[in-house]
């Protein structure tokens, strides 16, 4: 894999690259910015522009064969022209070029910021030559870059080896396209986006990891997102492409396999590689807090920024068991939440409401296709896709934001497969789709993972039994009845929660499906279950195919199969001796999955305890006790101007109102304000103020003494700024501006009131 850097040098031009972020400051069209509001050239825009240039160049050389036809139909078969080999063909083949967003870098190589301007534009009537009514628009642009401002956009790029492709030719083509690029983005005709572009080869730093002496059977793959991620979800609906918020096991397996091949660490026909992709079980890559459970609920009526999350397994289970024995428990209308400090009247709601929906920030990006002949936006080709945004710390933030990390557990590794995975540690890999559009770049960390502790599982089971027995005693006491116990002395409750969807094996009996994953494992009777059916299997096999379930669910089967969703809970009643015999096996089954598609992580579960306490701060994930950052508090210090603004505006309002009857004061204060904008020394402003007041005392002292009020306020500005003249001047400028505005309002209102009277 060849590492490159594409350098886009602005030529003293502003940039307006649209369709990316929400406009601010009342603009109609936004320019592309990253999460910290720094201007970027999106990888898709850069890729499109380069592709367009290369097509033009190659078509000019040999119109017939070197570049495929512009605006070809979507259904055309795989193309092997030089352009498609380099840039890929949408929906058919990935190209050799991997590209990231081009970020603005200052002369010293550090990330740079640029102010965002809003430029107005108006349509001119061609007949009258004057502005057309109601066609005023506002376009966001960057400030002009290049020229005296030494800044440039740099995009990391890679040329990955693809069988049958000539890497040297690809590099030549890319260099030619870069050299031909003259402008990028919108408004090129009015001078926006003029650039020169070059490509630079980088030396790739090779990181080699020694194979561990005792290779682990299971590892955790941590994907730290360095670019937006897109995983797809269902088919595109119209021109809208939704994404999942976690990557399926099959996606993780594919990403790992491609990374191994693209980094040249292994060949496709190596035994170790084949064993890795066919025998190991790859789990979904999820964020840390993404552990859904059907009994996990959120208290919704707190009206506070954070609401607490509670796992209601014990209480819900007891209520059902009681109803089975003729004891009714109604929801207390005055106390719907079980948390001791919460007494709200509205019911709990499931949390998270959709599996995996809670944590990563999802953003909708809207793009447009380019017309390859005209080089402009293609009509009716606006499309949107959801992406997961990696959080980026803003420059003024003191604390670093937590990076977006998705973790996947891989089990069933042998020594060679484990060593192969270890080679990817610390390397860049691409996870998910739209890789050539700058998405999916991740830094991969490979760490061994310890299997679940047997004693910990036993403790969870014992705790659950205690909670159930105590709860049942309370119910019996309240109902004044003595129904049969829910658990005998030698019986234990084993609660499992599915971490991944479960597709029962094709030959499973109907009774096994009803009895859950452990039905055929001598786990005893089912005490209760909280089943969520996967959306995948809900409405028949066609839906299953549409929602991304494995195709074997659909293929050649008369009756569609049902998929039980992650988060479903099954509680079994088992004998003590059965538990002793089988617990270790169940833990192993939970790690490596049960049912079908275990290679993609399906059918994994974990044994859980009562965990019925709630956490009022909402900062604790009740499923696994890990700290989860629900909110992102920002500890910030105030800037000097911001701290004094309240005083400034209040003073300005007071002085403005005081001066409202001083009829010609407007021009006087305007003069002082203009002087303050030009001068850098507060004493000069005071000097001018005194001079003006002496010359026009009628305007400054009658009927109200505005002079004294204003000069005192300016003195206070000086005191507040201590010896910092620059800060003092800034305070004085703000004070005069607020005063001027307030005076304008009050004098206009005064006149208006007089007219009315």
């Amino acid at each position, binding site marked *: 894999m060849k590492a490159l850097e594409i350098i886009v040098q602005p030529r003293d031009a502003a940039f307006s690259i649209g369709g990316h972020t929400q406009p601010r*400051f009342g603009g109609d069209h936004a320019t592309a910015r990253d999460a910290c509001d720094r201007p970027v050239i999106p990888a898709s825009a850069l890729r499109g522009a380069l592709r367009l240039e290369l097509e033009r160049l190659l078509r000019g050389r040999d119109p017939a064969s070197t570049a495929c036809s512009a605006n070809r139909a979507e259904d055309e078969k795989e193309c092997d022209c030089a352009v498609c080999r380099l840039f890929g063909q949408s929906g058919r083949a990935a190209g050799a070029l991997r590209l990231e967003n081009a970020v603005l870098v200052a002369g010293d190589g550090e990330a740079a910021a640029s102010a965002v301007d809003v430029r107005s534009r108006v349509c001119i009537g061609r007949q009258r030559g004057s502005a057309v009514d109601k066609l005023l628009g506002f376009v966001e642009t960057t400030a002009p870059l290049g020229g005296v401002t030494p800044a440039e956009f740099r995009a990391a790029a890679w040329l990955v080896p693809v069988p049958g492709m000539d890497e040297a030719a690809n590099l030549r083509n890319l260099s030619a396209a870069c050299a031909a690029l003259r402008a990028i983005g919108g408004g090129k005709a009015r001078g926006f986006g003029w650039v020169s572009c070059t490509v630079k080869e980088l030396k790739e730093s090779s990181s080699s990891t020694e194979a561990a002496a005792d290779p682990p059977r299971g590892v955790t793959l941590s994907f730290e997102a360095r670019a937006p991620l897109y995983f797809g979800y269902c088919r595109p609906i119209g021109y809208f492409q939704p994404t999942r918020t976690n990557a399926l096991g099959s996606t993780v397996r594919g990403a790992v396999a491609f990374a191994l091949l693209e980094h040249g660490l292994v060949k496709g026909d190596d035994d170790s590689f084949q064993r890795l992709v066919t025998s190991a079980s790859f789990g979904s890559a999820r964020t840390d807090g993404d552990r859904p459970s059907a009994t996990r609920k959120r208290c*919704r009526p707190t009206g506070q920024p954070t609401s607490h999350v509670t796992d209601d397994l014990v209480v819900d289970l007891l209520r059902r068991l009681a109803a089975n024995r003729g004891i009714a428990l109604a929801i207390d209308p005055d106390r719907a939440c079980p948390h001791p400090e919460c007494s709200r009247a509205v019911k709990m709601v499931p949390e998270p409401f959709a599996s995996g929906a809670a944590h990563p920030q999802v953003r909708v990006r809207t793009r447009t296709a380019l017309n390859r002949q005209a080089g402009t936006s293609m009509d009716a080709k606006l499309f949107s896709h959801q992406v997961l945004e990696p959080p980026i710390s803003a420059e003024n933030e003191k604390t670093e934001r937590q990076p977006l990390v998705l973790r996947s557990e891989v089990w069933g590794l042998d020594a060679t497969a484990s060593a192969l995975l270890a080679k990817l540690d610390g390397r860049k890999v691409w996870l998910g789709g739209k890789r050539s559009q700058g998405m999916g770049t991740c830094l991969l960390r490979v760490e061994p993972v310890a299997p679940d502790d047997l004693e910990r599982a036993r403790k969870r089971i014992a705790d659950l039994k205690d909670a159930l027995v105590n709860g049942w005693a309370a119910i019996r006491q309240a109902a004044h009845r003595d129904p049969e116990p829910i658990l005998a002395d030698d019986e234990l409750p084993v609660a499992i929660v599915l971490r991944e969807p479960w597709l029962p094996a094709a030959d499973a009996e109907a009774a096994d499906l009803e009895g859950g994953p452990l039905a055929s494992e001598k786990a005893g009777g089912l005490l209760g279950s909280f089943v969520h059916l996967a959306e995948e299997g809900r409405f028949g096999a066609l839906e299953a195919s549409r929602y991304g379930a494995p195709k074997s669910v659909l293929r050649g089967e008369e009756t569609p199969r*049902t998929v039980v969703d992650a988060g479903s809970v099954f509680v079994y009643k088992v004998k003590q001796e059965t538990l002793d015999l089988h617990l270790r096996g169940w833990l192993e089954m939970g790690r490596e999955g049960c049912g079908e598609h275990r290679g993609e992580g399906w059918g994994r579960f974990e044994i859980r305890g009562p965990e019925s306490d709630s956490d009022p701060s909402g900062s604790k994930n009740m499923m696994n006790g890990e700290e989860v950052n629900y909110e992102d508090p920002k500890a910030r210090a105030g800037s000097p101007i911001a701290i004094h603004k309240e005083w400034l505006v209040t003073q300005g309002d007071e002085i403005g109102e005081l001066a409202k009857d001083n009829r010609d004061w407007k021009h006087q204060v305007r003069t002082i304000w203009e002087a303050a904008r030009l001068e850098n020394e507060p004493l000069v402003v005071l000097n001018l103020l005194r001079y003006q007041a002496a010359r026009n005392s009628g305007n400054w002292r009658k009927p109200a003494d505005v002079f004294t009020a204003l000069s005192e306020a300016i003195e206070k500005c000086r005191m507040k700024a201590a010896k910092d003249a620059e800060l003092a001047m800034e305070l004085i400028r703000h004070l005069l501006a607020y005063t001027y505005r307030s005076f304008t309002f009050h004098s206009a209102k005064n006149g208006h009131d007089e007219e009315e009277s």
Partner: protein
Amino acid sequence: MDSSSILDMLRESLVKGLGSAIRASDPSLDEEAARRAACTVISSDGLPQDVANHFGSQPVCALVCFDADSIHSWVFDSERVQVAAGASDTLDRLNQEVDRLIREVPGLYGKLYSAGGGGMLFADARTDLNELRRRTRDWFEGQSHGLTFTVVAEPLFAPDLKPGKAPDKSTLGRFRHVDGLWGALVRAQVATRTAKESRVRAAPRLIEPKSGAVRAERCPSCGRRPPNREPVTDASPEFWCAHCHNLRAHKKFVDSSNMPITFAELAERIPRRRQYLGYVAVDGNSMGATVQSIGDFLGLRAFSEAVTEIYSHARDKAWAVLASYLENVKDPDECYLSLLSGGDEITLVLPAAAAPEVALEVLKTIQDGFDRATSDGGLLHAAFRDSPEILDRLRKAGAAAGVITAHANYPVRLLRRYANDLQKEAKRYCAALKRRSGLAWLLLTDSSPLTKGVERVAKSPDLDLDSFERLLAEARAARDEDLPSSALQALLSYYRHEENALDSLGEDRRPVLDLLGANFFRYQLARNKKLAAWWKAVQRIDPEIGADAKGSDAVAHWFQRGGGRRLEQLVDLLSLDPFPTSEAA
């Protein structure tokens, strides 16, 4: 028909079925005696002791509870308008045809209530309840084509028909023990929930299209593109893809030539610069808790009837409001969808321009409906005269609405999720501040962040109904005074600029921002005649501001009540052009 006669009618329908069951169990009783015994059950006095003795340990009757599974997913199974409308229509008909079910399935003899895809029926306890449950489920699933139902049958014994005692304090966290009839009704509800989450339901069988039928490059029905197919021009159903073919075979399409095909076309039915789609999700506040507080048959039935009537009236109101927006089409039915009607839920998909006003009117109509029903002569007043606690709760009943407006290329199922999130925000607001109704709305632009649904985006909207009404009035005044949008945009730009500048102050910046915003706003008022005219109109609308019109504090007061957010909402709202045009009017 007045409320007492409605109540008598309900009583009569329940007594008839139960009386015949009592008489069947004891043939020595004459019809009048059996009727009297049934009356005591209906009026929550329990079964007379002699009749109860006769039943011994045998159940007196049974309650069959049914509830449709995942109806939202079923209705929004496709992005086609016809499919959604047809599915909702099917569900609607099911609730209306419960009487036919009672006639056709032996063992069932009366309806306690039926609404919103769920309900409770009376059944003869002497029949095999498992078989009855299976037959009832088969009947529903046979009628609904693809929708699955959870059905449970709960036998009721003589002690279960006694009046429920006032419950003790909370027994187990948020639950309290109840017995008698109240307990039986709660048990039935718990059993339904348990059955719903304990069963791995089989998906309905798929009907495959004829071999070789799918040959179109794109399905002529849904526009999807099966791979490797040659294009054809024939749009007849035999060329539809398997998915659409399946839906057609299951009659989930509504056959209406004027109905738009896609939701994007629905958005175009009211012509506006922004062809956005609106999704309104309305749900009653604390209705579930109220149902669990009702411990007698007649109360439950009356409550169901009253809620159905109130919400049905609110839907009619939505239709009437929408009629005032029409320009290109003559019939409001052609430009909006009322889905999943029934129970305490209203779901509307309509052009975005009409969504805010429709939602407001729906909520106001629901509140008015509860006011009428709980006042003297109202059905709820007559039914709960002896239960002041429930009556008081119903007097304060209202609803929460989530309104989302977004570009028509957003999938409707996604809008549904966001609208539901907003609706929960509104519910949270209502519960926290003890308000009857609340409304949260949001304009979703193409790149709005979607963390946790839309909750954080809609963190501080004016959720109060009065406040939203004022917002609409302010927007209407802006339209009437021909206020240029650039004037509000300038204010908003300045506000956001200052907000960024004060970002370092954290939450402390709010009061400062309000002062700064007011300072700039006053300056603009002095400079811009149209803005001043609009401000005068705002002062007329809002008495709190109008009372202080002479002083400078009116502007500051307006800002303190959420002026910055208010400006954003105004700009967003006006961008939808949310009022009927003069042509439509």
